[in-house]
């Protein structure tokens, strides 16, 4: 069979997320349960989670999560890593053996610190250094794939239904202040462990329900800046777009949302002069990063979440609250699993970012 990245088949999906505005840490159990009523939105070909605040002991180190197809590749990759990083901890990511999840690769994590000599030689900062290393491994090393490379956060994903993937990775044993989740129904690619969501770069993670029609336009633009789209899945390019706009261009979350889900010109014309000028500027400068086609996404980042629908709102997404918790999901039923008496159930309008941040100093 051709692997993901080598074939494109022309998605329904399920997404959910929870965050504590107080930075209270919760296990991954609740978010795993939340995926159950949305079971039929996925087809068993991918499920995954991202947890933030889960590695307090190593919070100043980058947590690199890897899939390896064999031991030799792992050894070779480790040798490569040691040229660029101080490897503080190296361990297998614990998993449960369950009948629903099969054909698991070698799943490993390293807690690392970039070597300053290497960074200064390249004259780049720490984050850019980590990004380049991840891109290099994913595009050049056969049988190895970095699927998470942020600080004090981690992605856990597999081929399977999300509720099984959560059990498989023992998410009840991690505690994070925010979690995102995804159930996959791949339509463009065959479905492989690396292709499951969330897609992650540094602390940015994306879960996505939809099918973007601007994939190639977006990819051609973003690849000019060193990003390598290796999997042909639209979610990968969305992750890189946010890294580019937020980290490298320094845009705010709201501005980045106005780039990828830019308002129609007719809508911009109806805004006040200053806002219209700014929106026109963003649409013009970053026209190749406009994402068209249906999507609802949750962007996870250090200390917060942002949910966003395409401007036509061709996918469902609701939000809710309960005390310090804020919930986001494709369906209200998922929110009711996490908090039966959740209040303020809303559906953000298309193109309007819904942003939640943990209180400063609480994460």
């Amino acid at each position, binding site marked *: 069979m051709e692997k993901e990245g080598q074939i494109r088949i022309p998605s329904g999906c399920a997404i959910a997320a929870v965050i504590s505005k107080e930075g209270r840490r919760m296990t991954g159990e609740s978010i795993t349960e939340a995926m159950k*009523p*949305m*079971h*039929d939105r996925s087809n068993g070909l991918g499920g995954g989670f991202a947890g933030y605040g889960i590695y307090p002991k190593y919070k100043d180190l980058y947590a690199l999560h890897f899939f390896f197809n064999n031991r030799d590749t792992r050894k070779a990759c480790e040798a490569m890593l040691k040229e660029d990083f101080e490897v503080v901890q190296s361990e297998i990511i614990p998993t449960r053996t369950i009948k629903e999840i099969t054909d698991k690769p070698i799943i490993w994590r390293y807690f690392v610190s970039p070597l300053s000599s290497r960074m200064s030689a390249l004259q780049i900062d720490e984050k850019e250094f980590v990004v380049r290393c991840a891109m290099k491994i994913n595009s050049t090393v056969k049988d190895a794939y970095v699927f998470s490379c942020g600080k004090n956060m981690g992605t856990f994903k597999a081929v399977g239904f999300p509720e099984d993937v959560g059990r498989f990775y023992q998410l009840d044993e991690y505690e994070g202040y925010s979690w995102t989740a995804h159930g996959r129904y791949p339509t463009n690619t065959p479905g492989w462990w690396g292709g499951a969501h969330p897609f992650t770069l540094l602390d940015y993670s994306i879960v996505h329900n939809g099918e973007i029609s601007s994939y190639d336009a977006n990819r051609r633009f973003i690849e000019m800046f060193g990003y390598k789209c290796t999997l042909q899945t639209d979610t990968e390019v969305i992750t890189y777009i946010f890294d580019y706009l937020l980290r490298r261009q320094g845009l705010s979350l709201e501005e980045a949302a106005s780039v990828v889900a830019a308002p129609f010109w*007719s*809508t911009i014309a*109806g805004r006040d002069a200053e806002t219209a000028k700014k929106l026109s500027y963003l649409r013009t400068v970053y026209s190749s990063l406009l994402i068209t086609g249906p999507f609802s996404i949750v962007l996870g980042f250090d200390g917060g979440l942002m949910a966003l629908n395409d401007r*036509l*709102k061709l996918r*469902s997404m*609701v939000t809710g609250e309960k005390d310090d918790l804020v919930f986001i999901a494709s*369906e*209200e*039923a*998922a929110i*009711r*699993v996490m908090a039966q008496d959740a209040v303020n*159930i809303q*559906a953000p*309008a*298309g193109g309007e970012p819904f942003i939640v941040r943990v209180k400063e100093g609480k994460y």
Partner: protein
Amino acid sequence: MTTIDAKELDFTKLNDRIRETAGDLEIVNCLGQRFIADGQSGRTITIQGVPGNALGAYLNGADIVVNGNAQDAVGDTMNDGSIVIHGNIGDAAGYAMRGGTIYVKGNAGYRAGIHMKAYKEKVPALVIGGGAGSFLGEYQAGGIIIVLGLTGKKIVGNFPGTGMHGGKMILRSDCKDVRFDKGVTVSPASAEDLEAVSSYLKEYCRLFNEDYEALMNAPFTIVTPDSSNPYKQMYVAN
């Protein structure tokens, strides 16, 4: 009346159970199961909890009451009967419905009443108590959409009536801040216009305990398509 506890039942099992029973039915602990009561007729089905997508699709005469919010595509292609939602409703409510009524106490999501249609005595109606999202009545081909704006949410979002070519929309607002599609005619509703839909307005008040006199003490706007073929020659000569 029969009661089904939907806890831990997936949509297939729940719908099998529903079809095994006859007469009035109550479903408790409902949580996201899809396709509930699809195609049903001649009974009342009351739901406690959150029903999943496509509630009452192809409904053929049954009456559904939801004591809570509903998700997407409620009453998709329904033919007859009623659906009453004591809460808000998700996207694409009444998608392509061709008969019967849907009453929503609160707000509706995007594309409410998309491609509703009517034929002879079959005239569907969708009544939304709060505000409606964008693309209200998109491609509407027939039937009646009523939005009352009682929740404080803006009466309707962007692009209402895009591609509308039949039926009518009645909005309880002067709609001064609403930009309609250019293919529709927007005017203040006359006494006759309101009289024609008064049975729906009264039924809304009865169902949700609103005061009819107070409800009517507001400006109303009626929206109808300019012609039966507003997009003539937009793409091809037709």
